[in-house]
């Protein structure tokens, strides 16, 4: 009989092998799913994973990769800091929305300024918006011991309602002929998050994501705050013994992840999305949870994982337009990735043993 046995020390091999194994298992299980839906699984997998990089339209799609990966990486790094500390912010989607609204609102309030300072101020406003939204579950947790998973998640739906209100009400384009949605930032140069280098899809959000990854890596490995985050997640009582205040850590981690999600929302609304609209949010805040785990909660791993998930987004859109695959199939595909990741991850800390003699 097979038995799971705890390893004396976590396996280095499986720590790194888990993500690729999970991706391969997802391809196999996803392929079976696509075959059952009546499409050629090899064609789908090729469309999702190969064509965006090397196919006919790769010259355009490659740029799209960083556009999608940027916000995923930015949000996932914030989430990973919290997850490392055992603080579960599941509501990044809401913080992303509020960050976008704050950032856009500051810009739209002074429309049509040409000041070069407006964009930096909007960046600060976006981060602040996400931070404020994350402080709600943080303070409720530290004051009343509420569960941050539930509160942050429910606040996503509150944020969506505010988003709807913003696009049909207080941020609506006065020259929009009654259509919902704010002014478009593409015709507001001072406040626009334009591409810095279009073929790569690089805009300020992408720059922020990559810089944040490096800073977060340094924080976790070299800085005392990073040590405290890791310690609190692994051994909460040892963390208190070390001198970490649990409440302060909750505020720090929730605040950081909220600010980064807000930042991502601000870069998105002023760049690729262009305007505040009812369906502005596309689930980056939730997909970033998968990115965080696929990247092993390690900032550098998250950069890699961000690109893999971006691939499923870009390739998935291709598959749905060229092969008629429903969008939901792609979401199932992404969900499978998290499932296999967590399943294979057991092998990092446990190993299978053939139980002999015992029963």
């Amino acid at each position, binding site marked *: 009989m097979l038995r799971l046995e705890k390893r*004396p020390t976590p396996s280095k091999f499986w720590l790194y092998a888990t993500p690729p194994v999970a991706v391969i298992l997802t391809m196999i299980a996803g392929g079976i799913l696509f075959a059952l839906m009546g499409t050629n699984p090899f064609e789908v997998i090729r469309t999702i994973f190969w064509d965006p990089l090397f196919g006919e339209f790769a010259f355009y799609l490659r740029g799209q990769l960083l556009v999608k990966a940027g916000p995923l990486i930015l949000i996932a790094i914030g989430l990973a800091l919290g997850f490392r500390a055992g603080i579960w912010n599941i509501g990044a989607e809401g913080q992303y929305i509020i960050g976008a609204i704050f950032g856009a609102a500051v810009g739209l309030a002074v429309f049509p300024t040409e000041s070069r300072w407006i964009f930096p101020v909007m960046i600060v406003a976006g981060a602040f918006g996400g931070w404020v939204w994350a402080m709600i579950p943080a303070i409720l947790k530290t004051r009343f011991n509420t569960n941050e998973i539930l509160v942050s998640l429910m606040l996503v739906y509150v944020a969506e309602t505010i988003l709807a209100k913003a696009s049909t009400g207080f941020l609506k384009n006065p020259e929009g002929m009654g259509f919902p949605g704010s002014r478009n930032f593409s015709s507001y140069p001072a406040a626009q998050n334009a591409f810095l280098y279009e073929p790569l899809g690089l805009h300020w959000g992408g720059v922020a994501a990559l810089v944040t990854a490096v800073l977060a890596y340094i924080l976790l490995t*070299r800085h*005392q705050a990073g040590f405290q985050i890791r*310690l609190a997640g692994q*051994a909460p009582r*040892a963390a208190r013994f070390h001198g970490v205040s649990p409440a302060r850590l909750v505020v720090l981690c929730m605040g950081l992840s909220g600010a980064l999600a807000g930042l991502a929302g601000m870069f998105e609304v002023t760049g690729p999305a262009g305007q505040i609209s009812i369906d502005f949010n596309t689930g980056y805040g939730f997909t970033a949870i998968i990115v965080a785990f696929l990247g092993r909660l390690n900032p550098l791993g998250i950069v890699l994982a961000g690109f893999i998930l971006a691939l499923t987004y870009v390739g998935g859109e291709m598959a749905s337009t060229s092969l008629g695959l429903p969008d939901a199939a792609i979401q199932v595909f992404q969900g499978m990735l998290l499932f296999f990741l967590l399943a294979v991850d057991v092998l990092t800390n446990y190993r299978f043993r053939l139980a002999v003699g015992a029963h």
Partner: protein
Amino acid sequence: MTRAELLRPELLRVEGITKAYPGVVANSDVSFSIGEGEIHALLGENGAGKSTLVKMIYGLVRPDSGTMTLRGAAYQPGKPAEARRLGVAMVFQHFSLFEALNVAENVALGMEKPPPMRELAAKIRAVSEEYGLPLDPSRMVGDLSAGERQRVEIIRCLLQDPKLLIMDEPTSVLTPQEVEILFKTLRQLSREGTAILYISHKLEEIKALCDEATILRRGRVVATCTPRERTAREMAELMVGQALKAPERRPGAKGEVALGVSDLSVNSPIPFGTSLKAVSFTVAKGEVLGIAGVAGNGQDELLLALSGELKSAADKVRIAGQPVGDLGPTERRRAGLVAAPEDRYGHAAAPDMSLVENAFLTAGVRKGLTKHGFIDWGATRAFAEEIIAGYDVRTPGPDVAARALSGGNLQKFLMGRELMQGASVIVINQPTWGVDAAAAAQIRQQVLDRAGEGAAVVVISQDLDELLEVADSFAVLNEGRLTRPRPTEGLTMDEIGLMMGGAHGMEVAHHVA
């Protein structure tokens, strides 16, 4: 053949038992026998294989090879229920009782076919009176002392009318008076023909109680002896396999007060914990204060309140006269206080982190291992290596996870971590718990050396012998209250027992009986 074996018919014979776990042989070719009504000691250090051996006798673990016979018949219990049916019962070191249920309900839970509650309650009362173990069947277990809880476990076993009663370290939770009463009960059982397999590493107890002793070292039987005919020292050396050195105390002049605690009351943050009630004491430079007490009387809370994990009003705790009661662990370390909690896996150390990271856990402040918030891992590693060398920690290197080390080795590392920081106040809870005798002696010596250098030391321990060996003054923590510290010199065991709160209403029963 000794006299005892000649007189008594054989009850249990263990022949050539071997049991291996991955990476360690717990028992290797172990043989011994117990006669009916014999009190037989199983003696050995932590990790000598005592627990594995009795778990095999009780049917919890199966031997790889070897045979057991019970009253001449082959005995291979597949599970504890089978062992109980054949008359083998066991009282574990850690009780398995539900605090929210009463005594009778707890006893009923352990039975396969419990009788109606009223009948059971009457039986419990009868057995408890017969053996001088007073116990009210209707009391909540949550309200009982550790000694009383042990009585529940013992009575639970006696109701099965066992032929062999296994007791695993039964006295570690008892006051000296309670130990005396337990021994009376055990001797009575022995006279009535029940054999007792008594596991301990406390030699004086074994000399006082046991007829025969089997001594284990590293999974093997190294000697059998009649404890009454041996000195404790002889048995200790058989157990450890080397000559033992008693720690040397340097008579240092006592200086001014380094740690002062006055009228400290804090609520316990632990469920079912004990709150501290108006605790006051002072420790001078160079002084070792020993705090005794049965587990669960506020020891953990006292450590938390001193380390800074539990805060109080500023003037309740003073280091060198400076109020620190409202400061957290980091600031207290800066002020010169280091602390070592009892629970190594998860409190004193992060099990999944490396020894280097665990060195940083408490030493960061005093060893100056950070610069502008950034950790100097090179210096931290050097400190970890210093501890490993200085405290003889057996590890492949400083990068292994703390949980990969054995309990004793990790304890040596953690003691080294605190004692090598040059602190002026040192607080330790259970310094040698689970550590082998040689390492324990080394740790005690290091504690005394720090005191000799002028540190004020508080040692909280349940091991009275340890406290008497290292402490200059002695106090007892009982239900969250601390007795007034007294000089250790000249204290008798009886006085200590009374300080520990006597025997929780048990004297009466035996005087009547």
